[in-house]
């Protein structure tokens, strides 16, 4: 470990931490009435940090804090997604939070601190910085899940997430301790070197990786560690669910890739088997259990489990093209899921929010643009050709086939066909069923804006607007990881 601090490399993170603490002071002195101001300032903070990262840090490989913190093209790509996810979630949450009387000034600050944890996860270059980043993110998310504390569902979601999250952190730590014990280091670069020479003969490290994978799979909600997802997604306030489905998934997947490809390339054969299993299991569970859901948030929870399965197919390929396809996939997934959750936030009547799929009946006759946008998201999530979601799946399966994993790609294709059924069912309910009472439409302009933009970049012109630039960026980012 070299003693270089290189604080400059972590400048965006430092700005964000100080920004969050300054906003906290502002909020404490002004009270909850300052929600709008704090929320806007948080969004400004995200933008400032993103600009500082892109302009001042750049995509060169640099390490800071004695090798514990790394910034490279891969980190820049993933962090951009986290900034975007956090800012968009704050944009769409104001109306919902005010309606439910939970528009407290701590909300944007917790979102910002959670995002800070994600940035640290993405930039982790040692097992210790991985763990503290992960805990910073998780702890903020537990609080956000229980934010609507007067509603039993929300507190239950928070408690469930907390207990299972603590258990998974325990497994992760146990794995980390085994790896440290058997290799004598927590630094990713040194780990990669040590394990390259020893390989699978270091049986203790292999067992450590199994435990670490269990912990990481929990954080990305991959099967068989997905049990918490539907309950937490359903119970949490909808903007929080949108946040859960977006930014933390990106960060956890980035961590997954960084640990597996950056620290354990010497044990690729070992972790590849596990990743193949969890990706197949996630795709199947996401496809089949979602068939029977009636609540749209639960449906989207299973949908997100399935999508993590598809993304992991790319990682299972274990090639640079595979990682590149994961990056493309997760970016597209972010746009689809944020658009869909923004649409869920418009499902409000005078008596409050509604969450059943049947409440969408006949939406095309009450509000055609809304129905068209939601239909685009559903088609895109299903992976219908020419929409953005299709390209994500295309590159992932292509990478898998090139790496000789055609059975996994085949199972993925079959799972997509099954999952297309429930996505198309939503479209059928919206366009062909007898109209239910219409929604009141007071969801705020920013929600409409987010729906409009994400529908546009997911629509059939997505290849020009979203996918083509993404391919360039993802190719640049995936080169940064050592192959």
């Amino acid at each position: 470990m070299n003693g270089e601090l290189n604080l400059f490399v972590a400048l965006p993170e430092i700005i964000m931490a100080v920004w969050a603490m300054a906003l906290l002071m502002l909020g404490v002195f002004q009270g909850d009435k300052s929600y709008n101001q704090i929320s806007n300032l948080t969004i400004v903070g995200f933008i400032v940090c993103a600009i500082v990262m892109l302009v001042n840090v750049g995509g060169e490989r640099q390490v800071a804090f004695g090798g514990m913190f790394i910034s490279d093209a891969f980190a820049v790509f993933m962090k951009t997604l986290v900034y975007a996810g956090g800012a968009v979630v704050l944009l769409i949450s104001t109306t919902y939070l005010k309606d439910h009387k939970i528009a407290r000034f701590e909300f944007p600050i917790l979102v910002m601190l959670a995002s800070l944890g994600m940035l640290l996860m993405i930039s982790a270059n040692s097992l210790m910085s991985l763990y503290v980043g992960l805990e910073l993110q998780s702890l903020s998310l537990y609080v956000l899940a229980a934010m609507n504390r007067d509603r039993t569902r929300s507190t239950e979601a928070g408690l469930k997430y907390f207990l299972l999250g603590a258990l998974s952190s325990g497994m992760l730590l146990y794995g980390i301790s085994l790896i440290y014990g058997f290799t004598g280091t927590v630094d990713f670069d040194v780990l990669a070197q040590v394990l390259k020479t020893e390989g699978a003969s270091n049986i203790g490290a292999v067992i450590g990786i199994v435990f670490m994978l269990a912990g990481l799979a929990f954080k990305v909600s991959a099967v068989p560690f997905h049990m918490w997802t539907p309950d937490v997604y359903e119970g949490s306030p909808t903007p929080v669910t949108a946040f859960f489905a977006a930014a933390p998934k990106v960060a956890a997947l980035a961590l997954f890739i960084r640990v597996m490809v950056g620290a354990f390339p010497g044990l690729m054969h070992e972790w590849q088997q596990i990743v193949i299993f969890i990706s197949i299991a996630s795709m199947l569970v996401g496809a089949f259990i979602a068939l029977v859901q009636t609540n749209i948030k639960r449906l989207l929870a299973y949908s997100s489990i399935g999508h993590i399965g598809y993304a992991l197919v790319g990682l299972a390929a274990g090639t640079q093209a595979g990682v590149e396809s994961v990056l493309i996939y997760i970016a597209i997934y972010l746009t689809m899921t944020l658009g869909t959750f923004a649409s869920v936030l418009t499902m409000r009547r005078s008596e409050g929010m509604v969450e059943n799929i049947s409440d969408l009946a006949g939406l095309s006759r009450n509000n055609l643009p809304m129905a068209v946008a939601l239909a685009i998201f559903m088609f895109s999530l299903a992976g219908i050709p020419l929409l953005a979601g299709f390209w994500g799946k295309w590159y992932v399966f292509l990478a898998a086939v090139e790496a000789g994993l055609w059975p996994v790609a085949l199972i993925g294709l079959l799972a997509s066909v099954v999952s297309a059924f429930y996505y198309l069912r939503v479209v059928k309910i919206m366009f062909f069923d007898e109209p239910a009472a219409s929604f009141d439409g007071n969801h705020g302009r920013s929600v409409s804006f987010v729906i409009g933009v994400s529908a546009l970049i997911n629509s059939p012109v997505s290849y020009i607007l979203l996918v083509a630039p993404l391919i360039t960026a993802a190719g640049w980012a995936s080169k940064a990881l050592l192959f």
Partner: protein
Amino acid sequence: MLSLSLTELAFYLFAFVTVAAGALVISAKNPVHSVLWLILAFFSSAGLFVLMGAEFLAMLLVIVYVGAVAVLFLFVVMMLDINFVELRQGFLQYLPIGALIGAILAIELVVLGSAWHFGPDVASNIAAQAPAATEVENTKALGQIIYTDYIFIFQTAGLILLVAMIGAIVLTHRTRPGVKRQNIAEQVARRPEDAFELVDVEVGKGVPMPTKKG
């Protein structure tokens, strides 16, 4: 004849007391006794630290763990009315499956231990980390590690604690009606005229009721 130096004797004494107290912590019926045994375990581990030349850690253990944490435990144990008999009720019911899982884990650990093998670099990787206790003072060595080498981890841990604090306040703090709070600004701004008035008392008439102000 078995010969033990004074240090060795002290080590075995402290080690025995630590292990025995640790066993009593989990076997004591009364939770208050458990906490008291825990304090004994802390004290004897502090003795072990002193033997290893880590005086600062020993003092920290006594001050922080015994002085603060154990006392906090005592408070919690005494204030929360937990029925420990009830908690133990399902014990026999779950014993077989628990024992089975424990046995499987133990066998796995044995298998793992039999294949125990350290890589060639392990010794060199670990060796470079901490300077010898004789070279650097305790506090200086700790300071170097915590505030210089691992400043990143230390600061992030601080942020995690900040989130924990925000979370506790967000989830539990409520503004209740009818709570009388101290308002320092109001107290400071209070003038003598608001607080009392001078009354000329006529002889034999008594004091009239004061008019209430502020």
